[in-house]
C-alpha cells in the first residue's frame, strides 16, 4: 500500500474546508477549550444552524494556543477567508452565526483575526503580537486541522517525511536528524540523532522505542495540546524513529490525567492500522512495527526514563542508576530509546522539510523551535512555539502581553520542579538550553509560569519542595529525606520560624542533593530553593529576620484588619468568613478577631471595591503599613 492514492482524497477533504461550497465552522475543542465551555458552544452552533436552516459543516479542531480567549470558533464562508472568533459563549456564537451567515456581517468586534490577510477590518491572525514572533513546527497543525481526521493531516503534508525516510537507509535517516541539530525536547537536551545512533548500534533484539508523554511538570501542557491537536505528527515521528533504530515495538507512555489525548491517540493509531501504517511490511518497505499505549498512574518520577521503563514493565516506578543506559539495556534488558512527544513531532517535520530547513531556526547550539506553555500571572496564557534564542522579554511582554492588573513582573519559573526562578532583571536572557542552565534554571519540557509582585518567592520554593517531597520515589536517601528536610526548613521560614543558619543549610544540602541524588528529580529538587535564594535573598532575609512577607502570601506573616472609617457594615465579609472571626452589627464597622482568623483572605476578596475597607498587614510589628496595595 502506498499513500499517493490517499493524497488526492485528502486534498479534496481539506479543500472542502478551506475553499468550501457551504459554510464551515471549526470549534477549538482541546481540553482547554472544553474547560472554557467549547462543548456548550458547539451545541449552540448545531442548534443555531438547525434553527436558521443553514447547511454547514461543523468540525472540532485542536488548540491554536490562544487559551486565554477560548472558546475559539473559526468560520469559513464560501468565498471568504477563515476567520477566528474568540471568547465565544453559546449566546454569542448564535448571534455571530446569524449575523455572519445570514446577514453577511462578519462581526469584526468578535473576531480575533483572519487566516491570511487582514479583511473586513479584522487583523491578520498571524500578524497579531501573540502570533507574529512564533514559528510553528511541532504545532504546525494544532488548531488548524481536525485531529481526528487523518485526511486533514495527510493533506497538510503528513506522512511525506515517513515515505521519504523509508526510502532511505536507517543510518541516513539518523544522519539527517543529527544534522538538523534536534535535541531532546523533554528537558535534558541530549542530541536526538546521537541517541538514536547509540540505540541503532546497540546489540540486542528486539529493540523498543518509547514516546514519553508523561508530561509531569506542573505548569507544562505542550504535550497534551500537541497530542490532542495533531496526534499523527507525533506518530509519524515515532514510525520514522522505529525505522531508523530498527525497533519492532513502540510504546506511548501517557499520563492517565489526559483522557482526551489518549482518546485521540487511540483513534489515530487505529487509522494508521487501517491503512497499513502499522503492522507488517509498512508501506511495502519490509519494515514491521507496532505500537501500543501504556497509561501512567500518577507518578511524576516516571518521566525519568529508567523509572518509566520500570513502570511499563509493571514495577514500582523507581529509577535505577545509569549506566547501563537504556540504549544498551532498557525494557526487558533490550536496547530502548525514549523520546519526548515534541521531539517526535519535530522529527516528522524534519523528515518532511529537511534538516537544513530546521536548523535554520534557533541558535548555534540550540536549533529549531521550542514550545512553551505560558501560565500564571500573564495576560495571554496559552501555548506558543518560538525559535530558540528568543528573549524572555519578547515572550512575556510581546507574545504574552505582559502582566495583568498593572502589577509588576517578579520572576519567571521555568523547568518545572527541577527548574528555577529567573528574576525580572534577567528578561533579556535568550531562551535556549545553555542560557537557562547558566541562569540556574532549566528549559525543561517548556513550562513557563509567570510570577508577579503578589507571589512570595520563599512560598514558591516551598510549594515546589512540597511537590517534590510527595513525588520523590523514595529510593535514594538525598531525595527522599533531603526534600523533606528542605521542605521543613522552608515551611519554617514561611511561618516566621526561620533562622539565619537556614540559608547556608539549604544551600549546602542543596548542593549535596544535586550531586548525590540518583535521578533528575532529586538532583533538581533543590533548584527552586537555590535559585530563589540566589536572586531573591532579601525576601528570605525579611522572612527570617523581620517576619515579613513582602508579597503578603505567607499566611503566618500577615493579618487582615478592617479600617473602621471605610467600613459600612454591609456584612458581606462577615458571611464570607469561614472561621467566624468577623463580628459587627449591620451598618456599623466590623472587627476581625485575630485569634480566630485563619488568614484566608476571603474578607479582602469580597469587600466591595468602593469601600476597600479590608487591608492586609504584616502580622508582627505595628499594624500600620498595608503590605499590599489596594
Amino acid at each position: 500500500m502506498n499513500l499517493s492514492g490517499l493524497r488526492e482524497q485528502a486534498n479534496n477533504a481539506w479543500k472542502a474546508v478551506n475553499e468550501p461550497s457551504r459554510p464551515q465552522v471549526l470549534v477549538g475543542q482541546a481540553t482547554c477549550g472544553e474547560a472554557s465551555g467549547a462543548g456548550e458552544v458547539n451545541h449552540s452552533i448545531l442548534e443555531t444552524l438547525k434553527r436558521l436552516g443553514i447547511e454547514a459543516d461543523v468540525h472540532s479542531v485542536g488548540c491554536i494556543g490562544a487559551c486565554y480567549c477560548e472558546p475559539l470558533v473559526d468560520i469559513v464562508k464560501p468565498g471568504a477567508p477563515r476567520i477566528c472568533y474568540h471568547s465565544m459563549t453559546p449566546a454569542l456564537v448564535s448571534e455571530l452565526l446569524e449575523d455572519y451567515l445570514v446577514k453577511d456581517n462578519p462581526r469584526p468586534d468578535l473576531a480575533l483575526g483572519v487566516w491570511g490577510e487582514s479583511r473586513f477590518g479584522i487583523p491578520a491572525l498571524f500578524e497579531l503580537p501573540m502570533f507574529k514572533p512564533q514559528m510553528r513546527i511541532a504545532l504546525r497543525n494544532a488548531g488548524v486541522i481536525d485531529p481526528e481526521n487523518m485526511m486533514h493531516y495527510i493533506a497538510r503534508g503528513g506522512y511525506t517525511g515517513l515515505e521519504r525516510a523509508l526510502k532511505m537507509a536507517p543510518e541516513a535517516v539518523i544522519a539527517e536528524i543529527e544534522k538538523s541539530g534536534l535535541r531532546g525536547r523533554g528537558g535534558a537536551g541530549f542530541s536526538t540523532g546521537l541517541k538514536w545512533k547509540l540505540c541503532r548500534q546497540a546489540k540486542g533484539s528486539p529493540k523498543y522505542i518509547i514516546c514519553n508523554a508523561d508530561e509531569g511538570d506542573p505548569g507544562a501542557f505542550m504535550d497534551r495540546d500537541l497530542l490532542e491537536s495533531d496526534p499523527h505528527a507525533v506518530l509519524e515521528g515515532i514510525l520514522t524513529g522505529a525505522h531508523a533504530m530498527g525497533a519492532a515495538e513502540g510504546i506511548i507512555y501517557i499520563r492517565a490525567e489526559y483522557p482526551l489525548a489518549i482518546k485521540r491517540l487511540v483513534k489515530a493509531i487505529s487509522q494508521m492500522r487501517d491503512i497499513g501504517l502499522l503492522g507488517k511490511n509498512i508501506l511495502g518497505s519490509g519494515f514491521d512495527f507496532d505500537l501500543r499505549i501504556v497509561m501512567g498512574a500518577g507518578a511524576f518520577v516516571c518521566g525519568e526514563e529508567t523509572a518509566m521503563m520500570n513502570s511499563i514493565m509493571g514495577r514500582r516506578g523507581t529509577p535505577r542508576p545509569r549506566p547501563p543506559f537504556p540504549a544498551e539495556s532498557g525494557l526487558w534488558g533490550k536496547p530502548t530509546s525514549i523520546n519526548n512527544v515534541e521531539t517526535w513531532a519535530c522529527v516528522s517535520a524534519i523528515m518532511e522539510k529537511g534538516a537544513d530547513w530546521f536548523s535554520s531556526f534557533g541558535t548555534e547550539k540550540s536549533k529549531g523551535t521550542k514550545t512553551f506553555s505560558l501560565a500564571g500571572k500573564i495576560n495571554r496564557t496559552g501555548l506558543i512555539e518560538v525559535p530558540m534564542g528568543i528573549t524572555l522579554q519578547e515572550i512575556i511582554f510581546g507574545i504574552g502581553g505582559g502582566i495583568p492588573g498593572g502589577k509588576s513582573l517578579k520572576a519567571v519559573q521555568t523547568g518545572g520542579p527541577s527548574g528555577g526562578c529567573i528574576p525580572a532583571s534577567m528578561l533579556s536572557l535568550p531562551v535556549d538550553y545553555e542560557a537557562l542552565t547558566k541562569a540556574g534554571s532549566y528549559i525543561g519540557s517548556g513550562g513557563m509560569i509567570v510570577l508577579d509582585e503578589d507571589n512570595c518567592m520563599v512560598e514558591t520554593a516551598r510549594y515546589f519542595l512540597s511537590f517534590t517531597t510527595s513525588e520523590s520515589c523514595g529510593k535514594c536517601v538525598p531525595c527522599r529525606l533531603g526534600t523533606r528536610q528542605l521542605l521543613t526548613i522552608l515551611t519554617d521560614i514561611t511561618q516566621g520560624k526561620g533562622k539565619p543558619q537556614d540559608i547556608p543549610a539549604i544551600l549546602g544540602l542543596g548542593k549535596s542533593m544535586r550531586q548525590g541524588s540518583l535521578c533528575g528529580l532529586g538532583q533538581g529538587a533543590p533548584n527552586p530553593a537555590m535559585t530563589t535564594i540566589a536572586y531573591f535573598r532579601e525576601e528570605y532575609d525579611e522572612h527570617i529576620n523581620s517576619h515579613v512577607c513582602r508579597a503578603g502570601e505567607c499566611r503566618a506573616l500577615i493579618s487582615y484588619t478592617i479600617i473602621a472609617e471605610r467600613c459600612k457594615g454591609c456584612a458581606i465579609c462577615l458571611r464570607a468568613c469561614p472561621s467566624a472571626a468577623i463580628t459587627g452589627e449591620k451598618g456599623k464597622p466590623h472587627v476581625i478577631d485575630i485569634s480566630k482568623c485563619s488568614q484566608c483572605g476571603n474578607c479582602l476578596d469580597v469587600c466591595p471595591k468602593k469601600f476597600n475597607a479590608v487591608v492586609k498587614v504584616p502580622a508582627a510589628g505595628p499594624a500600620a503599613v498595608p503590605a499590599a496595595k489596594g
Partner: protein
Amino acid sequence: MQQISDILSFHRADRSDLIPILHEVQSRLGYIPPEAMQAAADHVGMSASEVYGVATFYSAFKFKPVGRHCVKACRGTACHVKGSEKILAEIEKALGIKDGDTSADGEYSLETVACLGSCALAPVLVVDERVYGRVTPARVKSILRGER
C-alpha cells in the same frame, strides 16, 4: 469478583499487564479492593505484596471506595500561583471533607492531583470527567451543583 475475572481474562499473564489491570479495576469499581490485588497477583504470577507495593507507588490508585462524584482539584504550579489553595479550602468547606476523603453520604470524593495540564485556564477543577477553568472561590458551589 466476576468483574475482576472478566478484566483478567482480557489480559496476558504477564507482569507488564499489571498496571493496566489495576487501571481497569479502578475504572469499574472506583477503587482497588484487596481481592482484586490478590487476583491480579495470581494472574500475572506475582505475590500480593508485590502488587500492593506497585499499586501504592502510584497516586492514581485508590484503596477505599469512592463517592459517586469525584472532585479533583489541581495543585499544579499555575493553579498554585493563581490561588488554588483557596479553591481547595472552599471545596473542603462546601463538601465538609478533606483532600483524600469521601463524604459520609457517599456522594463526593475529593482529591488533589499534581497537574491537570490546563494551566492556561488556572485554577482548574475537574468534576467527574468535566474540566472547569478559571475557577473562583465564589464559583465552587455552583460547579459542585453541576452548573457552569
